[in-house]
């Protein structure tokens, strides 16, 4: 692709796309902050491909102006490329939380990451779960794909109007309440099993169980209730005899369902209850 293989060519196209009228060489050089001679040297390739049209203005054609040929099919592709680039350029150097807050409107940070600090960073979370309204899902996907090598965004596509979240003044992002974060983690367990770490918080904090049940039931249904019910049932048997299992009892409970979750939940439950002295270490 020798039409966009140098920064100069990209800047010429960018300048002409941004300025809808025709520009002379010196004006292009001014806008692009590149020397006139360099523009002269490289503009000919773009003219050859028909991306740019020359307009003779002066006598004997000495003074020329240039403009983008919007009828050339390559222009649309290059234009799209610039548009996308422009979008990405705005946030690519931002921290992930700032990128979310600047790029998205209907979203909230949820899952283990939303609770991480409140739990004194005791558990590990290598991804950031972001709940995004379906209308903004494509934008969020772009964000996820741009950060793919630096940050693990886990996207939850769901209507967020009825979700329980707030604006965190310190971090300047929308964040899920503890109950909402737990509901999302448990409901979307298969999407990111790392979020099982949130069970730590669930087993050591006293939360608003009724609110949690409502959120689970409304947003994630019986499968999420079953998961929490199973977790608390194990925790009770293991020695945490005050954990509220019954409040999460689903309408129907089939034994042995959801084997991957139950295996992971058991492991986490043991680890948490043992390290908190609720179950005895040597015993199990």
């Amino acid at each position, binding site marked *: 692709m020798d039409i966009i293989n140098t920064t100069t060519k990209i800047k010429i196209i960018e300048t002409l796309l941004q300025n809808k009228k025709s520009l002379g060489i010196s004006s292009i050089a001014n806008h692009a902050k590149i020397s006139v001679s360099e523009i002269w040297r490289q503009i000919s390739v773009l003219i050859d491909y028909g991306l740019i049209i020359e307009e003779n203005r002066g006598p004997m054609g000495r003074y020329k102006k240039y403009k983008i040929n919007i009828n050339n099919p390559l222009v649309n592709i290059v234009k799209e490329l610039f548009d996308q680039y422009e979008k990405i350029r705005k946030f690519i150097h931002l921290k992930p939380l700032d990128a979310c807050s600047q790029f998205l409107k209907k979203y909230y940070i949820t899952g283990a990451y939303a609770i991480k600090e409140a739990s004194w960073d005791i558990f590990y979370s290598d991804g950031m779960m972001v709940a995004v309204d379906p209308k903004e899902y494509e934008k969020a996907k772009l964000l996820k794909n741009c950060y793919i090598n630096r940050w693990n965004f886990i996207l939850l596509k769901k209507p967020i109007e009825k979700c329980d979240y707030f604006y965190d003044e310190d971090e300047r992002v929308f964040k899920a309440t503890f109950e909402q974060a737990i509901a999302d983690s448990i409901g979307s367990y298969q999407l990111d099993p790392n979020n099982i770490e949130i069970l730590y918080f669930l087993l050591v904090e006293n939360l608003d169980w009724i609110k949690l049940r409502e959120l689970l039931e409304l947003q994630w249904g019986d499968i999420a209730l079953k998961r929490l019910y199973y977790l608390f*049932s194990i925790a009770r*048997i*293991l*020695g945490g*005899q005050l954990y509220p299992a019954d409040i999460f009892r689903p309408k129907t409970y089939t*034994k042995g369902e959801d084997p991957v979750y139950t295996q992971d939940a058991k492991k986490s439950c043991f680890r948490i209850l043992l390290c908190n002295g*609720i179950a005895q270490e040597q*015993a199990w």
Partner: protein
Amino acid sequence: MWNVYNTWDWKDNTKESIINFANQLKFRPDIVERTIGLYDSIYQLMKAEVKQTFYGGSMINQVYINPDEARLSIDIDSVIREEIQNKRDLLDVLVNLRETMLSDKSLIPITIKDLEIGIGEILSDTKRQALHPQVLFLKRILPTFFVGTPLPDYLSRIGLSSKDPSVARYLINLKKEFGFLPRIYELRIEIRFSKEGISYPFHKQQIFPYFKQVLTPIKYLECDIEQVASVAQGKLEFLELVNEEETINITNTICDLRILYLYNLDIEIPLSIRNKIKRIKEQCKADFSKYWFYQLISTKYSFDGILSKIFQINKAKKSRKEV
């Protein structure tokens, strides 16, 4: 009062009826209550989706010995015949058992201050769990009138102090509803397992509760019980290993060894065990008259009487063999 029993008629589980049973039996009401709880808890354990054989003192005394002369053993022992690697393998069995008990209403969850207490629930006996890696120590939380810890004390022990206004409110309301404050009794359960599975010889047998002349359950239990000869052999092995200071355990075992002559079993008591018993005989005798759980047996037998009969049978067998 909460009804968590599937094997007893609800009407029988009132303070008055238990006092009435106790009067008929001339026994303390708390022992009647323990009996009721024991019988029902065997039934609950039978619901566990695992192949198990019941054994131990309570089975010997409820199955193999005349109820009039039983030693009152009020705990449950069972072994799992399937291969079990460790206690964790049994967690799902317990979760499923919990679910079944909820459906059968033998477990009633009550909520106090956002926390839940399971009346009738079977839980890990956390304090004892570390005692043995291949014995699952459990307890069943039973509501009682006479035996166990008063509810406010029990709640405060598990972290719900009655000084907390919401706990106090709950207790006041409960007293209004029941007319009294119940007690909580924790019935002990031990389930033995091994990587190879434990295969005690067993057979299906109907179990009758202690005091069956007065206490009639609505459901009679039939479960896999260790065979009598195997029980006797196990008891002798226990005597061989047990520390001489554990006089109650030794006295219990000797009481249970009555099955040797009741069933005319062809088992010899090794000399080492006889010597051990002789050494601590006097201490065992003291225990025999002291505790409530020997109350029935001691009306019919003396400790010396049981011992001499066991030894006598043993001598007869020995001489028969020599001839």
